[in-house]
């Protein structure tokens, strides 16, 4: 039978003023299982704690209840004291008779009776408490970064600089992401490539960074501190170790007219190519869809002329397993496409803007490539249709963004600024040209942002028209833009030479399937969800996985870099200890009763529940059950409330403990 010790605190007069603490101790002392009950002026003081320790040892107490202030105040204090007296800290419970009793009631009789009941409840509860050992989880101090855009690069460099190994995985043949495609960046108009490419080179040269380009995450297993990542390295057809990056193959390739996606299909590239001249690594890849060798078996020119013999048509996809302890997801964004969308898609496209069929109606990224000195036009703003310089150019903002009827209701956050930038770049290049911007309202908060936007209007003479465009259509070689100016209430019709659409920022296609592999949650649009919008903005609910950049929501470069560094800092915090220690308030599966319905898995906000096979000694499968990974479990107990047979139990809040309290009432 249990020998429970009860310690009733006066808290100076805070409790004893309204609660008759002596009477509480006396009444509780007669309760079944209570071996010792006393009261003391300040239980949390050194002598108070000493009293508690002494009683545990002398009275051979098996459990203790401290009736004092809220457990949020001193639960840790008393559990520590109990522990130092040789009692498992989880055999100590706090009865809150201050915040929940003496401070909120004035009637001494009522307050005392209530205090007795509160303590009685905790006495019954503590009888059912079990010894809980602290949980430790080993940590592999290597990190995976998914995505080699600016977010991934920044996170990888920060973690590597702190001395930890990083595995960086990029889907495309080169790192750089969208930022490498940009011409100049707001609000300073410095050249994007000038600030980006040195970082790319840092990555490839960093001794702590292992870079996989043209590779994707295939499979993820494990949990915080102990992930096993399977990476699919797609067949590049060029041996990265042998290739010197001389570029001869690209010069000689007979297939030359493949639209280059990096240039938004404006420029052309050969079948063996690097996406752009500053690519990292500077190793070409063969586009097997277009390569003659792969299509017909003939040609083979690149292999013949390659001095080091790096071209390898036989190369196959390889799967590589990397153990890591933390994951930074930095997969970036795609732009909304105005083309007709398949039936059933929540994204609608823009029939009124021609569904993408008018050649001189382009999106912002295409404009970036036109404006980029390294772009297909060498930095000249020219119409894709006929190569003429547009003299009247119309920019339309909020295309897709903030348009519920088009499937997206959020603001893409960066378009106001980059459109302002576009008008400037345009004016700098086409001095006699006129830029018009249709906008709903300008959202330009940020350091030097508003000033930048005003400069576009005041210095660069962009005409901002507040209103939306209802339709545009090709008329001869002009594009008629029909819109309204709601500030003066008139219809506006502009015959433009070119139209630039500030299309919405969307998560990458396939973001959902990566999330499913990682076991992280995502919103309706497939942006990844942070654990807490305010207080845990870079962590996923799934422990050990962190978010950086636009995969979590639209953001500009400064915000992206900040978040990437924050994610890196979180990884470093995790890596600062060899073992992860955590409170043992975690769920455990009682395997005998588990019927593997996996309701627990369905409701677990942390993805902590796994499927486990139970086999006999011969290896025959007996049954499959749920298993809660104690390293990942957050301790909410939703699984237990959901489990039909109550075969999963949250330590510290077991049904026995709770029912004991209810029955004590």
């Amino acid at each position, binding site marked *: 039978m249990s020998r429970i010790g009860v310690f009733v605190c006066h808290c100076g007069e805070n409790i004893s003023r309204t609660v008759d603490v002596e009477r509480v101790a006396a009444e509780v002392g007669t309760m079944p299982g209570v071996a010792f009950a006393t009261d003391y002026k300040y239980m949390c003081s050194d002598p108070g704690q000493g009293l508690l320790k002494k009683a545990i040892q002398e009275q051979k107490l098996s459990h203790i209840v401290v009736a004092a202030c809220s457990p949020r105040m001193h639960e840790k204090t008393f559990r520590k004291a109990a522990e130092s007296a040789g009692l498992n800290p989880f055999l100590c419970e706090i009865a*809150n008779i201050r915040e929940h009793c003496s401070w909120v009631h*004035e*009637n001494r009789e009522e307050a005392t009776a209530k205090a007795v009941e509160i303590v009685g409840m905790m006495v019954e509860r503590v009888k059912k408490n079990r010894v809980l050992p602290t949980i430790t989880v080993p940590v592999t101090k290597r990190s995976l970064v998914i995505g080699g855009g600016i977010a991934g690069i920044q996170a990888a460099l920060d973690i590597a600089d702190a001395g930890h190994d990083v595995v960086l995985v990029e889907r495309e043949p080169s790192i750089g992401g969208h930022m490498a495609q940009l011409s100049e960046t707001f609000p300073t108009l410095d050249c994007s490539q000038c600030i980006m490419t040195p970082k790319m080179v840092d990555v490839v040269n960093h001794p702590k960074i292992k870079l996989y380009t043209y590779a994707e995450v295939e499979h993820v297993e494990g949990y915080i501190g102990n992930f096993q990542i399977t990476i699919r390295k797609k067949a590049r057809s060029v041996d990265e170790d042998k290739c010197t990056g001389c570029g001869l193959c690209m010069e000689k390739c007979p297939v030359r007219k493949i639209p280059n996606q990096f240039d938004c299909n404006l420029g052309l590239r050969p079948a063996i190519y690097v996406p752009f001249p500053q690519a990292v690594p500077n190793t070409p890849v063969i586009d097997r869809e277009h390569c003659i060798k792969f299509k017909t078996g003939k040609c083979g020119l690149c292999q013949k002329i390659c001095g080091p013999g790096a071209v390898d048509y036989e190369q196959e996809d390889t799967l590589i397993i990397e153990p890591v302890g933390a994951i930074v997801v930095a997969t970036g964004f795609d732009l909304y496409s105005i083309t007709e969308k398949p039936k059933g898609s929540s994204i609608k496209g823009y029939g009124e803007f021609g569904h993408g069929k008018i050649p001189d109606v382009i999106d912002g990224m295409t404009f970036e490539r036109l404006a980029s000195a390294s772009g297909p036009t060498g930095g000249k703003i020219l119409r894709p249709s006929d190569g003429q310089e547009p003299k009247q150019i119309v920019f339309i903002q909020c295309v897709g963004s903030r348009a519920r009827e088009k499937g997206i209701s959020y603001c893409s956050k960066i378009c106001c600024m980059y459109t302002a930038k576009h008008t400037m770049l345009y004016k700098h290049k086409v001095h006699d040209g006129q830029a018009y911007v249709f906008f709903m309202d300008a959202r330009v908060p940020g350091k030097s942002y508003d000033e930048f936007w005003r400069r576009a209007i005041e210095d660069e003479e962009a005409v901002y028209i507040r209103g939306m465009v209802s339709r545009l259509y090709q008329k001869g070689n002009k594009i008629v833009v029909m819109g309204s100016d709601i500030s003066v209430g008139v219809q506006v019709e502009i015959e433009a030479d070119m139209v630039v659409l500030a299309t919405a920022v969307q998560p990458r296609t396939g973001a959902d399937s990566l999330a499913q592999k990682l076991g992280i949650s995502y919103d309706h649009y497939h942006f990844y969800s942070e654990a807490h919008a305010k207080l845990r903005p870079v962590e996923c609910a799934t422990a050990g996985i962190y978010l950086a950049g636009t995969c979590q929501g639209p953001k500009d470069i400064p915000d992206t870099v900040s978040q990437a560094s924050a994610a890196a800092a979180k990884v470093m915090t995790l890596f600062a200890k060899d073992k992860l220690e955590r409170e043992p308030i975690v769920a455990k599966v009682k395997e005998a009763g588990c019927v593997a319905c996996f309701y627990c898995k369905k409701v677990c906000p942390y993805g902590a529940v796994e499927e486990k096979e139970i086999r006999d000694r011969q290896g025959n499968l007996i049954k499959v059950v749920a298993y809660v990974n104690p390293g990942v479990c957050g301790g909410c*107990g*939703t699984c237990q409330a959901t489990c039909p047979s109550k075969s999963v139990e949250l330590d510290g809040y077991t049904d026995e403990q*709770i029912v004991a309290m209810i029955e004590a*009432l």
Partner: protein
Amino acid sequence: MHVEKQKHDFEPKIIAFVCTWCTYAGADLAGTSRMQYPANVRVLKFPCTGRIDPVFILKAFQQGADGVLVSGCHPGDCHYIAGNFHARRRFAAFRKLLEFVGVDLNRLQFSWVSAAEGGKWVEVVTELTERVRDMGPMQEFKELAMEEQWSGAINTPELQEAYNQI
């Protein structure tokens, strides 16, 4: 100055199931702010409303509660991301069931009380206590607990006495 408390013939027993991060902390704040409310409520702390099994509510009524309060974090504030969303669905369904079997839902209150809402805690508890006090004791479950199958019933004075006491 002490306001003399009104004496009531019946003081209901109210059981509150609350989450530790929001409502328990909100109740702590009510204490720290020295707000006053009826002493009828007994608080059971859970990590999260997601942990609260509907059976506990039933059990509370069976054990003599006259009113039950379930309270947790506001939507979006859950310390465990989504426990309160699961709880919201569960209780939306469970209260309909209780209503269908004849439990007066005026005895069962759900609320969101954040760690900053000491005042709301007081308001919720006071309102529920007063409402249930006006309704009188939760006779249904108490009577049910005393009822026997005819074949097992015996005319014992002690049973009769116990019955009379409720």
